[in-house]
């Protein structure tokens, strides 16, 4: 199978997020970027498919700080080709980025026709759309999201497992080529030791490709009024002290409520 995985870097929300002085974006100086979590699962699902069905995996990622680490790590995990897309502005909102990525997929030599384009089902900054359906729409391919498994590739179709709710899932038949938004791979994303990533850095060439012009302006269809930290309707009563002190206070609380 010819598999393309779209991946990107997003802010690490474990770090404190600072709003820029214009109140309309995050302060890029204060951001630490990491691989979007469900994109990592999309890569894992593609690698599992390659192991089962053969073929190749190409990872495409828009340029961003640390994106080279993402691409070298993908190569160390088993991606055959890694491509950095230049000229796409990272940040809030994805519709323009998805449009530019879809245009690039068609323009990068040797990438299409592909059987599947896989990407994360959502990211933490998908303000104006989701990447998978936008790319599907641009390519004119079918789309399915919240995917947790892909199998039985035959006769131009693939069997896809999608999550619904309350533990229910659905088994779908999807015509190829298609775009899938992956929620979780069938196995947790594989770990690669640093030594293997270093070896990939020596053995792998990151291809660089300029996004086809004109690259759409981000957020051209929605005007940002302001970003803010959420004002909570309520807030927990915070218990302070050493862990032993807090454990004691919690015991009292639970006992008062008849929970011990």
């Amino acid at each position, binding site marked *: 199978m010819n598999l393309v995985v779209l991946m990107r870097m997003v802010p690490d929300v474990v770090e404190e997020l600072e709003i820029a002085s214009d109140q309309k974006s995050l302060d890029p100086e204060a951001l630490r970027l990491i691989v979007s979590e469900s994109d990592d699962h999309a890569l894992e699902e593609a690698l599992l498919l390659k192991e089962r069905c053969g073929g190749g995996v190409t990872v495409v990622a828009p340029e961003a700080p640390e994106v080279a680490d993402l691409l070298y790590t993908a190569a160390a995990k088993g991606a055959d080709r890694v491509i950095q897309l230049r000229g796409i502005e990272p940040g809030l909102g994805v519709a323009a980025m998805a449009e530019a990525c879809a245009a690039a997929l068609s323009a990068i030599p040797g990438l299409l026709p592909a059987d599947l384009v896989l990407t994360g089902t959502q990211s933490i900054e998908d303000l104006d759309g989701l990447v998978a359906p936008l790319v599907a729409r641009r390519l004119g391919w079918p789309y399915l999201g919240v995917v947790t498994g892909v199998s039985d590739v035959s006769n131009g179709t693939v069997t896809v497992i999608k999550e619904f709710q309350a533990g229910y899932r659905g088994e779908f038949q999807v015509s190829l080529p298609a775009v899938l938004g992956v929620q979780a791979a069938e196995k*947790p994303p594989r770990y690669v030791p640093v030594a293997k990533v270093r070896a990939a850095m020596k053995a792998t060439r990151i291809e660089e490709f300029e996004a086809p012009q004109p690259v759409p302006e981000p957020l051209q269809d929605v005007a940002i009024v302001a970003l803010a930290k959420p004002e909570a309707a309520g807030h927990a009563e915070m218990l302070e002290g050493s862990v032993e002190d807090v454990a004691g206070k919690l015991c009292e609380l639970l006992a008062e409520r008849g929970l011990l």
Partner: protein
Amino acid sequence: MAGNIWVVADQWQGRLTDITFEALALGREVADALQVPLEAVLLGNGCASLAEELGCADTVICAEHPALAEPVPETHARAVAELAQQRQPRAILIPATNTNWGANTLLAALLDVPGVNFAVDLKAVDGALEARCVLYGGKIEVRVQPRKEPAVIGLWPGARPADQGRSQRKPSVEQASVSLAAEPKVRLKRYIEPEAGEVDLTRQDILVAVGRGIQSKDNLELAEELAQVLGGEICGSRPVVDQGWLPLSRQIGKSGLTVKPKLYLALGISGAPEHVEGMKDSALIVAVNTDPHAPIFNIAHYGVVADALELAPALTEAVRARKG
């Protein structure tokens, strides 16, 4: 009629979901502020009887087609797009559930209009529509104004109480027809029942929930020990299940279970909206997280800024000592 506010009804297993009524409650407010009718869009095949539950809307636009019997987001997006092109609503509110995940994005793309995701509120501000969206795992809110209409608003659970969108009033029902592909490229083959868990977590009084802060599978035993001494069960958030540390049958949140125990002890859970959706109605929520700004503290009753790996064994010992 052009300029109306639409709510697309979400269904699961033949029933309207709570988020449909939440969306109707919000849509009612927006429609009243703009002095336009609120219309509910009901899609399916043999679903017309559900229309009478949508009395919060002035009118129900009911479109039935064999292809709409299957929960395929693309098919539903195409049907709404066809109706919207004919009737030109001002805004289309679509509940963002796994069942129709991506339908709002596809609909916006089909209509070449703005899509807005993860909205928890929508208002008319000086005649313009303004949505409030929750991003970055619940840590940042963004207020946005769509520049073109109809604005397609993907609505997150909890925008309004569901009961506010229920009404005994009988809405007028208008049958509409849509033309859809006879051979869709995405077909549902079968539903897969939930994996049977060894216990029914929805019936437990005490749940000890673990999140990314538990750091590794080896540390699960700290939470298991605490759950055991409290007489409860262990469960977890999405990342813990995706890592394979807990089975899907123990996942709380959007794709998993909704629980309302007497005690929900959240260890190392940040409180992303997807998780909160499944536990926010617990009687007592105690959250432990190293991040003092973690959104979980906004819904917890009691909070502790601490490493769950240190607090869990301390609490286990304290409970043991108290129980003797």
